[in-house]
Structures are given as C-alpha cells and as structure tokens.
C-alpha cells in the first residue's frame, strides 16, 4: 500500500480486480431497484385477488367460498393501486439524481403502464353493462393480464432483459390458456401461474444480482 490514504494503490492486480467487481455490484445495487420489491407486490396482488375471484366465482358458476360479491374486485383494485404506488416509489428512488436516457426510458415505460390500464378500464366499463358476471370476469381479468404480459415483453425489449421477456411470454401464454378454459378457471390460472411467475421472477432477479 502506498503512503497516503488518498493515493493508496494495490500491491497486486487480483486485489484491484476484486475491488472493481465489488464496486460494480455496489453501484448496480444502488441504481437499480431490488427485483423482489418490483415483482413481489404484483405477484401477491394477483395471487390474493384472482385467488379470491376463483373462490367466489368458480367454474360453472359455483361458489366455492361464500363472500360478498364485491370482495374480489375491490381487493384487486385496492391491491393494484397499492402495488403501483409502491413500485413507482421504489423505482423512482433508485433513479433519483441520475438524469439522462435511462431515467427518460423509465419514465416513459411507467407512463405506458398507466396509459394502458386507464384505456382498458374506460373501454371495459363502457361495454360492461348487460354482460353476465362470467363474461365480465373474463373481459376484465383476461384483458388486464394480457396488457401486463405485453408490457413486460416491451420492457424486455427496452432493457434487453431476457428474464423479463420470459416472464412476459409466460404471463401472455398462461393468460390465453386460462381464457380458453373459461371463467373461474382463468382466475385460478392467473392466481397460481401468473402470481407465482411474478414471485419467481423477483426471486430469480434477486439471486442473480447478489
């Protein structure tokens, strides 16, 4: 080691390479959000609210667990809003005081989520009148989940993120399979495969950056 603290160097290149690797990990950890915090709120939202929907509006109109009919949709709305606000704050925190293309990309991507959800919510509520409950749940559940799948695919294209692409493709395919199986089954598929997929994505992302 050299004499002064400011100018201290290394005796050996291995030590320098280790320092580089440590600092890379440290910086990446601070400027990108923790994948668990970005995916788990959505995974839990889907698991809980589509789970409730399956129990209340089961296949063939069966009620597996009796509860007021407003519970599943209210849970979905509240949890979606909470997850949106939470992940918005977490994502914003990691990008703070950094300006340039990547923060613009993040902002535009965030806006596309809001734009998509707002548009579908307005369209679906306009056509909802007169539809039977079973068709309604497929329209709202299937439509919103399709949007999420596509947005993850698009996010994968923006950040060249293969894992996010796999997640988007998984959500898109299981959603279609669920819609084909019909009302009730769709909620079960989205709760388990979709919600589970989001939880796995958070875990995989976290393990990779440790």
């Amino acid at each position, binding site marked *: 080691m050299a004499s002064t603290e400011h100018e*201290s160097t290394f005796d050996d290149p*291995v030590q320098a390479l280790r320092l580089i690797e440590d*600092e890379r990990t440290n910086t990446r950890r601070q400027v990108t959000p923790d994948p668990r915090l970005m995916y788990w709120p959505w995974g839990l939202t889907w698991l809980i609210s589509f789970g409730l929907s399956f129990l209340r509006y089961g296949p063939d109109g069966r009620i597996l667990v009796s509860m007021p009919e407003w519970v599943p949709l209210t849970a979905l709305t509240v949890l979606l809003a909470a997850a949106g606000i939470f992940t918005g704050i977490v994502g914003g925190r990691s990008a703070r005081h950094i300006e*340039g*293309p990547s923060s613009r990309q993040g902002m535009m991507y965030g806006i596309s989520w809001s734009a998509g959800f707002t548009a579908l919510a307005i369209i679906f509520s306009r056509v909802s009148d007169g539809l039977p409950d079973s068709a309604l749940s497929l329209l709202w559940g299937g439509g919103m989940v399709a949007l999420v799948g596509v947005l993850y695919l698009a996010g994968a294209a923006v950040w060249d993120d293969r894992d996010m692409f796999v997640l988007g493709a998984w959500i898109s395919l299981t959603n279609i399979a669920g819609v084909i199986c019909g009302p009730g089954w769709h909620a079960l598929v989205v709760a388990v495969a979709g919600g589970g997929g989001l939880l796995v994505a958070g875990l995989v992302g976290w393990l990779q950056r440790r």
Partner: protein
Amino acid sequence: MVEGELPELDPVIHAQARLRVVVALSQLGPGDRIAFPRLQEILRMTPGNLSVHLRKLEDAGYVEVAKTHRGRTPATLTHLTAKGRLAFEEYVSTLKTMIEPGGGES
C-alpha cells in the same frame, strides 16, 4: 505477481478511491449523468475527498463535471467521458494480462 509491471498501469485510475469513482460512473447508462451528492452516497466518500478525485479525473479528461441549475438549486452533474471509459477498459485488460500467465508481455 510481477511487481515490475505495475507502473504500466494508468496512474490516474490506479488509486483505490479514483478506481472506485470510475467503476461507479462506468455502471451508468451511456449519456446518463449523476448528481454529486448521489455519487457521494453510492461511494460513501466525504464531499472533500470526492471532489479532489473528481478534479484529478477531470484534469485527465476522464470525467466531465457540469454545473447546472434544477429550478433554483444548483446541481453538479458528472459522467465518464469516452476517453475515460476507454482508459478504464484498458486498465482492466492490463490487470487481466498480469494475472493470466502468458496473457500479456512476459
């Protein structure tokens, strides 16, 4: 290790504190600039220490430090220049040739 080869490493980068600054800046996306307090927080350095090293890196043309205003508050934004990025890449590859037998000049 071959001690005699160490002096060939870029002296501007080959100091712990400056190496850490360069690595942190190299992790930002191309075109991204970071505010001074945030960089300080990431590196856990004192303001005085960080500005000393940034000035040396700036003198070498490895970083660019721009003073701007965000509303009424002044902000200092820093990023690695193309020259700095290249110097860092060369520094890393020099280190690697040192530890890989036969990888560089013997």
